[in-house]
């Protein structure tokens, strides 16, 4: 997905709590993903959905593939120039990481996550240089390639290419010349009133994830 220097619209945001203690079986994962996709389809052409894993005790490899990897895969594969969908996985504890990381790696994907204390990290397939750059963007909130290149000691052109690649992988968002972390985007969108449930009603948007059909 090419990124451009023109201003990008602020995404609609939604927060979906996964009201499932056990995210196990492919069948359940499919049901959960479909309900999240339904939620995303009600948002604008540019969206950022935060999936809260705070209540999830167990996620197995099959379910991680159905929920995490396939949501990210579809966001990355979406060829429509006018639409951009981002996902952030929040409340991701150590015991969630192995299945999620494995599922993403098998498809060559990566995703932005936050630990239980809010610490940002990437899961899935990311090379170390890209990871350093992503961390620098997260620390700054938003930054230009020139500033980031100095920060991480990289050639500005290489830095720009790597940042664009991370935008295409839906790990960062580009707005004009600046690259924004998804966490910064979320905070900014909340302040700007782009959140569906979050700002309209003061409550989080909810995906019906009662996946045990």
């Amino acid at each position, binding site marked *: 997905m090419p990124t451009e220097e023109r201003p990008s619209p602020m995404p609609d945001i939604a927060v979906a709590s996964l009201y499932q*203690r*056990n995210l196990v079986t*492919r069948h359940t994962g499919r049901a959960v993903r479909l309900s999240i996709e339904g939620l995303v389809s009600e948002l604008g052409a540019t969206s950022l959905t935060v999936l809260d894993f705070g209540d999830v005790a*167990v996620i*197995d490899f*099959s379910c991680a593939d159905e929920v995490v990897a396939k949501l990210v895969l579809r966001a990355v594969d979406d060829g429509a120039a006018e639409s951009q969908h981002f996902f952030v996985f929040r409340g991701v504890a150590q015991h969630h990481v*192995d299945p999620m990381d494995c599922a993403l790696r*098998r498809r060559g994907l990566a995703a932005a996550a936050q630990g239980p204390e809010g610490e940002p990290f990437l899961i899935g397939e990311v090379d170390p240089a890209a990871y350093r750059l992503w961390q620098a963007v997260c620390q700054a909130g938003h930054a230009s390639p020139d500033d980031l290149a100095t920060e991480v000691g990289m050639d500005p052109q290489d830095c720009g290419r790597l940042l664009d690649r991370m935008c295409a992988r839906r790990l960062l968002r580009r707005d004009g010349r600046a690259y924004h972390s998804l966490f910064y985007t979320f905070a900014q969108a909340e302040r700007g009133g782009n959140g569906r449930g979050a700002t309209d009603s003061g409550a989080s948007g909810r995906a019906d994830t009662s996946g*045990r059909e």
Partner: protein
Amino acid sequence: MSLVIEVPEVLDHKGFEVLIRDLNRVTRGDVRRVVFNAKHVRWTSPYGMIGLLAAGRVARERTGAAPSIEAPDNRDVRSYWERMDFWHVAPEVYDLEPVPTRAHGTSDALLEITPIRSHHDVHAVVERVRERSAAILLNKLHYPRPSVIQFSVLLSEVCQNIIEHAEADGWVCAQTYNYRERLGRDVVMLAVMDVGIGFEGSLATEHSRRHGERWSAGMALERALLHGESRYRDPGRGQGLQAIRRQVDRWDGELAIRSGDAMIASPTQEWGDLAHMQTGLEIFPGAQILVVMPARPEND
């Protein structure tokens, strides 16, 4: 005619091989009814116990009549079968008259024999073992706390293997033992079985043409367990077994999968008796999975 099959005194994964060798004397048409004589059974592992259900199911399919079973004489074995809910599940396979009542109160089993028919059963199993597995893994096996969730994930993945690939129902059960002679430590044994299409059948459409005449049950097991291949082209598929293998390896345990006429084991341990690959075994339908998780040495 009726055929009496003597159930081996020690009904573990080796006893199961003896059992199905005798069962394979039953071919369609020549035997009307099979009687499994378990009177002399002295010891049973989870693998052996659900193996007896699997063998009964096959006997039923081959003869068209539900087989019967003679209960063990040994009081300890009989009590153990009761505690593991064998008699509760057996009427689905065996002609039992009268059906023995559930005599036991609270079971000490990690997981009693549980039929796996749908994803609901997998959810139920994962929920049911949570507290028991925490007590056993932390206190008896001295595993670290994250192992409780890792065991739930392992359990979910092995059970899903039935739902996603077997095209038939199956069973799961798990129990703790003291492996005094071999290891001098406790182990958890987990067994999962079905009598469905097996690995060779499941992977055939996607992989058999590529391998031509070399295609076999052993190769199908190798492709699935060591290379993460499945019946689907989707790269997200086939990761479950590989994840189980990695986890069992981290616990210094053993994992074996039998299907068709082959059995693959990886990882294996010096204290175990599983060969990396056995072929030319008695043909038996479906897949039979054995996981052995040893306690960590006290001074570890």
